[in-house]
């Protein structure tokens, strides 16, 4: 048997603190198949006040560099994703060149079914899958005229450093503390 190819190497780029257990599970799946990912690397401003300050942003959960694709995952019931759909529509209007894929609860369920993990679905979905939220980031009034990449030393970079620990937890574990900025969950 050949050596495991480069494609199988885990992204291992840091340690994000996932906002939701489903996000950690999807990260494990991407790692398993050697898909490089970044967690919330970009905050796209989608609403400004009259002073030009950003009052609302959208940070898709993952960016897959190989495919130049952003992925947003929600496990909320379909009836509760209106706000997220609105943000996504706004993002597509303002940044038409950005490719974003939204995975709904039904998509995540199908993924869990495919991998024989339906038994974990409840613990990974909706409010059950949410973990403790600790907001320690700047308020949404920060000025940012363009999509911002999280610089080193920000809470997001601390997220990435936590990645290895989270990803190594047993599948379905939802023990991660959460630090997040402009989540719309």
């Amino acid at each position, binding site marked *: 048997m050949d050596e*495991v190819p480069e*494609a199988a190497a*885990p992204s291992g780029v840091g340690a994000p603190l996932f906002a939701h257990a489903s996000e950690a599970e999807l990260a494990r*799946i991407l790692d398993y*198949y*050697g898909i490089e990912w970044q967690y919330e690397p970009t905050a796209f401003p989608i609403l400004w006040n009259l002073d030009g300050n950003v009052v609302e942003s959208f940070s898709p959960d993952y960016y897959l560099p190989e*495919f130049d694709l952003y992925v947003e995952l929600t496990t909320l019931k379909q009836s509760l994703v209106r706000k997220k759909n609105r943000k996504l529509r706004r993002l597509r209007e303002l940044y038409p060149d950005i490719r974003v*894929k939204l995975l709904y609860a039904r998509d995540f369920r199908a993924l869990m079914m495919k991998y024989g993990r339906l038994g974990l679905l409840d613990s990974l979905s909706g409010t059950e899958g949410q973990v403790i939220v600790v907001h320690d980031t700047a308020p949404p009034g920060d000025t940012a005229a363009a999509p911002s990449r999280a610089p080193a030393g920000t809470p997001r970079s601390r997220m990435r450093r936590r990645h290895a620990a989270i990803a190594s937890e047993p599948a379905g574990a939802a023990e991660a503390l959460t630090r997040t900025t402009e989540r719309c969950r």
Partner: protein
Amino acid sequence: MRQPDLTGDVASVLITEEEIRTRVADLGRRISEDYEGKELTLVSVLKGSLPFMADLMRAITIPVAIDLMEVSSYGTATESSGLVRILKDLSSSIDGREVLIVEDIIDTGLTLNYLVRYLRGKNPRSLRICTLVDKPARRLVDIPIDYRGFEIPDQFVIGYGLDYGEYYRNLPFIGVLKPEVYASP
């Protein structure tokens, strides 16, 4: 998982045996024309593509070599931080050969993406993809498909190699599994 009822668990037949036969013959004709005079190796991805491979290779009218591969699935991973593994590697070199990956179904594209990268590393002259079933609604990573049998809606399908819990592969048609089958513990 409860004891499967091979035909009783099928909610509806999505693609009949006859439709499969006709489509496979058509694919075989197209592949025979496209690869006329070339050294073609069909690489079947176990286990799901076995029936398709067996029928497709007999529908191809030019000389072909065949090989088999099997890769692990995230669903069978025993370690949460595991990586995809080659369970069954190629038996012969594909260096300089025209290679056609034969898949039963492409949904997320994760396994196929891994395989493509792996096989590209073995220096084939060309590498193309043939799938019997394409479920684009579930696609996570985009991969160009060269030969497609059927595009199907977002339903959980079984039969003609496709399984649920390793069963139903021997159904001669492709059917939709009753939801209560996978909802039951």
